């Protein structure tokens, strides 16, 4: 676990690179390990479980985007080795290879070497040195960046008929990977809370012997199990069907239910830890901040209910199984 304030510590990033964390999402043809949704998910779940707050999801998105590039071997090698860092953002506009737009809270951008801008037209690489960024401390103990791009020059790395598929895959993996990370953080909270209830003595006995406490721990377990099936749903459908309407439906359902589970797990974990839960002595408070940040951003940036209405209800897909997909 990396404590607040140590974010971006180079050794940790190198250690993650040595474990292969940054190559998993890069396609095999592009020089990566060609991991799919499940491999990416399992990595983020583990990182979430140990509350490793480095912006690995950013590297997953960057690796997915760079896989679309035809001539980016150097960048891909630098990403995988951990020599260079790439932040990724969507929703910017390009005119004649110059990128414009306003960016807020961007994870993984502060300290990055390059910004990858995924626009409608293609993938653009911006030298982070020409961007004036303002670091912003975020609720989950990471650092975000705010910046404004006004016709900033960029190198185009990818375009063509397949580009929108790659961009949609990167968007989908971003949502999917964050959900798995949140699930992992919940598993850690459940394990820590169960353990604390077994050992913490009050009224002459372990707290976990009180039925009211047992039921609240059980509700955490049930919620974490729901987060697990939500994460599985998102990853399996994305893997089976690619970044199309089925995956958008599954990812919306996944995000809504992971967020709902996160509320139960985070709030109950703090409550059952009592005074220790509201201090920074244990990692429970940090898990609470992490899961609250997930909920807020999931709702604000992804709007799962609106997504679900747009991709499922409007086509009556919700009247049929979310799982049994045509090959």
């Amino acid at each position, binding site marked *: 676990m990396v404590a607040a304030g140590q974010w971006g510590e180079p050794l940790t990033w190198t250690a993650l690179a040595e474990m292969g964390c940054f190559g998993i999402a890069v396609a095999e043809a592009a020089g990566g390990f060609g991991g799919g949704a499940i491999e990416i998910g399992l990595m983020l779940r583990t990182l979430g479980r140990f509350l490793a707050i480095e912006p690995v999801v950013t590297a997953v998105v960057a690796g997915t985007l760079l896989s679309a590039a035809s001539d980016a071997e150097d960048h891909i090698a630098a990403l995988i080795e951990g020599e260079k860092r790439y932040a990724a953002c969507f929703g910017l506009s390009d005119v004649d290879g110059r990128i414009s737009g306003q960016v807020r809270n961007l994870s993984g951008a502060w300290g990055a070497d390059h910004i990858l801008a995924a626009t409608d037209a293609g993938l653009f690489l911006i030298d982070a040195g020409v961007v004036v960024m303002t670091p912003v401390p975020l609720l989950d103990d990471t650092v975000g960046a705010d910046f404004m791009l006004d016709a900033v020059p960029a190198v185009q790395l990818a375009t063509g008929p397949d580009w929108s598929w790659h961009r949609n895959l990167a968007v989908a993996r971003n949502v999917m990977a964050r959900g798995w990370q949140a699930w992992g953080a919940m598993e850690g909270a*459940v394990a820590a809370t169960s353990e604390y209830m077994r050992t913490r003595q009050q009224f002459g006995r372990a707290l976990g012997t009180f039925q009211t406490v047992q039921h609240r721990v059980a509700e955490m377990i049930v919620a974490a199990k729901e987060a697990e099936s939500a994460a599985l749903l998102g990853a399996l459908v994305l893997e089976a069907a690619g970044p199309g309407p089925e995956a958008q439906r599954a990812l919306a359902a996944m995000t809504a239910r992971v967020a709902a589970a996160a509320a139960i797990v985070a709030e109950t974990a703090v409550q059952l830890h009592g005074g220790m839960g509201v201090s920074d002595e244990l990692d429970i408070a940090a898990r609470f901040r992490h899961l609250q940040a997930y909920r807020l951003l999931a709702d604000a940036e992804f709007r799962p209910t609106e997504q679900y209405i747009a991709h499922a*209800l409007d086509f009556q897909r919700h009247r049929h199984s979310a*799982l049994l997909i045509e090959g």
Partner: protein
Amino acid sequence: MDLLLDAEQRRFRDEVRTFLDERLTDELRDGQSRTIGVYPEPDLSLAWQRILLEKGWAAPTWPTKFGGTGWSPLERFIFENECAQAGAPLVYPIGMRLVAPVLMEFGSPEQQQRWLPQILSGEDYWCQGFSEPGAGSDLASLRTRATREGDSYRINGSKMWTTHAHHANRMFALVRTAETERPQQGISFVVIDLHQPGVDIRPIISIGGDHDVNQVFLTDVVIPADNLIGEENHGWTYAKYLLEFERGTGLFSGRLRASLRRAEAALNGPPSAHQQRLIAEVAMELDVFEMFELSVVGTLPNGGAPGPVSSVLKLRASRLKQTVSQLGVALLGADGVRRVPGSTEDVLITDYLNARAATIFGGAAEVQLGIIAKALGEL
């Protein structure tokens, strides 16, 4: 787990669809859509079971040696999903999915031969004699007494909340055969023929106003000693085994989705933005539950017991049943208080009321939470 259906699975699904197109009548479909109790009435479910039997599809959860289908979990999932989607009646599970696994695991070959074929054919209709007036969540405190008299047992006591006892000819029951310090140790698992003197079945009217459950009085009822399953005083073990199957082997997501469609069908016109949000929230929960159900049931071999995760499945299935039925009433708005007999509204309102039982029967939600805390939380 690969979700993408391969050619063989698509062929299987098409075979199921063709079968449903050909054999599922409008009458059966309509009967299921008007079902407001926990299970359809036996004339409906047995008629469908006989049609399934002709095709060899009556017992998807059974091993093939007893007449099961030998399907993989995913095939079973596809089958249940298609049946629910088409509106087929629910096959009555008390014999098929509750007592049958106990007979297969703990019954003698003679007992298996005596009872399993009639469960499969629908000739026998079973009910579950577990709860008693004084033993609900605290099941082990049950007091219905069985006394050994030579080659038979004499039974006295009463069973409570017995679903469809008024339709059944057989009951599997937990009875006390010894007074022990731990109440669980003196319980035996027996089979009672209900068509005999001393059996008195009285209706209990449910919160929704219908007759699903009963109180069954047993006064000097005599059963042959070889109606004992397994060993005397070991019934608690068999009951726990049965409850894992009751809680953890049903496939409900297709049925819940059918209920969701039934609720939407009651709308006059397209849903408002508010109604869309209500539907989306429930449908998303249902999508995730479907994944959970498949990941639990999908990892089971045919006839396998699911273990303590069955309590999580039971809890989530029962809560979702309530959520979906509540949506049905919420979508009706002010019409959700109009109980005109035979109306669509009344079907939804009655279903909503009866759904409150889902977190009570088969072990109340609080019992499941206790099991989850101990077995999965190690508290």
